[in-house]
């Protein structure tokens, strides 16, 4: 094992540092590309509890699509807790996304106006499915209107989904900008 400062050791260290730089740049690039080339959908949430902002820098978003009727399940076997799923979303008349189907494998051909979001089953209830999208934690930027609010406002979340499936929150918009007064 190389432990002294031999040329091969220095070479390995340089490679490792370069790999770290590339990795961080890759994370940034993936974030940028998701917005630039991704598909954009708008999600509704239940009112956001802003109390957590007093001691943390993020809020927890509870999407309406976090609950899907069990009838929307499209899979050969019943859904299991912690199972990874593909959620087919279709945009309604009010431009909000609703669950059109929950698949255990990637759905074949989403139609126009439909999008696929990766999710995980959190609970299986008698008539509904609890779903998690890993978009629930939202880091609230310092200039966000959410920082000024005192009550629990209804919000609209704009999410972009990259062609390779990665999704991220693009922006969170207050439904009524009067909440802060």
């Amino acid at each position, binding site marked *: *094992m*190389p*432990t002294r*400062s031999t040329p091969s*050791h*220095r070479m*390995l*260290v340089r490679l*490792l*540092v370069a*790999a*770290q*730089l590339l*990795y*961080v*740049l890759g*994370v*940034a690039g*993936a*974030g*940028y590309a*998701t*917005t630039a080339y991704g598909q954009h959908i708008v999600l509704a949430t239940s009112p956001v509890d802003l109390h957590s902002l007093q001691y943390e820098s*993020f809020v927890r978003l509870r999407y309406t699509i976090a609950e899907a009727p069990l009838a929307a399940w499209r899979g050969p076997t019943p859904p299991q807790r*912690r199972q990874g799923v593909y959620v087919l979303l279709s945009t309604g008349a009010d431009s909000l996304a609703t669950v059109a189907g929950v698949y255990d494998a990637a759905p074949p051909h989403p139609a126009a106006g439909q999008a696929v979001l990766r999710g995980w089953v*959190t609970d299986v209830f008698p008539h509904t499915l609890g779903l*998690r999208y*890993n*978009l*629930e*934690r*939202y*880091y609230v*930027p*310092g*200039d966000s209107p959410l920082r000024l609010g005192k009550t629990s406002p209804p919000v609209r979340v704009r999410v972009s989904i990259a062609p390779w499936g*990665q*999704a*991220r*929150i*693009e922006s969170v918009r207050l439904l009524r900008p009067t909440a802060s007064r």
Partner: protein
Amino acid sequence: MSRKFLETESPAWVAEGIISAEQQQRLLARYPTEAVQAVGLLPLLGSILLLLSALSVVAANWQSLPTQVRLGLLLSSLVAAYAGGEYFLRRGNRRVGHGLVGLGLVLFGVSIILTSQLYQLVGYDVSGLLAWVVVGMLLSYLYESQALALLPIMIGAAVQTYCTQALGTFSYATLGLVALGSGYRWWRRPDTIVASVLATGLLWQAALWVALSHSKITWFFIPAMLVYAAGDWHPERSASRALQGPPLIAAYLFALGLALFGETDQYAGLLRPPVLAYLGALVAVFGLSVAGKRQRGRLASLPDWLLLLPGFYLPGGLPLAVATLVVLYAHAGSVLARAHRSGEAEQLTLGTVLFVVATMVAYFKLTWAFLDKSLFFLIGGVLLLGLSWYLRRRNAQRLAAGVATVAAGSATPPGSSDKTPAA
């Protein structure tokens, strides 16, 4: 002989004419003042403090900085830390060099977290944090440094904590990386501190797994004893004991808890995993451990496994409490006996403490509820007296043997008679 002892005593020797003043000076020069022992941790702590101060300055203005500037700041400080580390290492200053490399590793993690936050990618998956563990592992192989060996273990524990608490999943990759990566590094370059931290980190991850999967908490002891069994196979005794410390402490605390609270069937019911699966796994690990002990000639430490006897399958109440106490007494006795054979003072103290603890548990749990007080203390007292009589007899025998050896005038080195019982 410590330097301090020399400093305080040598003037008297000069005054009494045992040594001359010049010889005193030569003796003092022979034993220079030792460097502070804990200095190995200082670069680590220093890098953490530096990092915190830099973080607070940048964090105050972070939100107002443009994206490119933020990325640039992160990446340039990362490169600067690694470059500085290499620079100091080449100049021969290993401590500062390794501290800076450690800082670079910490900055890599911070860069991943802050960049993900910048793009709201946090919580998507664990792969970003996994990359942090991988890099830490590779660095620990590239540099011969204790601090850099400890960092990936701690990072792994932190990543696993985040995964289970925030994402609600258990990252088997993180566990595997720490167990195999850090484990192999420890195997090749044994070190007692790394061993203890490694075992603690692995136990922590195992505990997180148990908590997340809502398994019976007794399943925790399968991975814990696997760590213990790994220690049995290691050729170096001190490193192996250091690795086995945390699992043994956990097992002892569990047995103690069973003795204290086990009489209520409600608690014992929480501990009973399916009999065949649990016992099968435990026996498999036990076999592995015994094979290791036999291979390395350490069968004397076999009574450690007494703590793992699955007493919780007994019906709660008196049988369970008594059985656990018997196990605790037997374990304390085995530690005492082993300490006597090896002649280690620390082990003897440990055994005595274990014995006293078992007696105290017996007093508080049993005496006024179930058993006649006097009977229990009679047994405890007789056990203690018998043990002391046995120890004294052994001492006398050994003394006699030593005298005989000296009388025979054989050329055996003085330490050889101490080592024979360990074989």
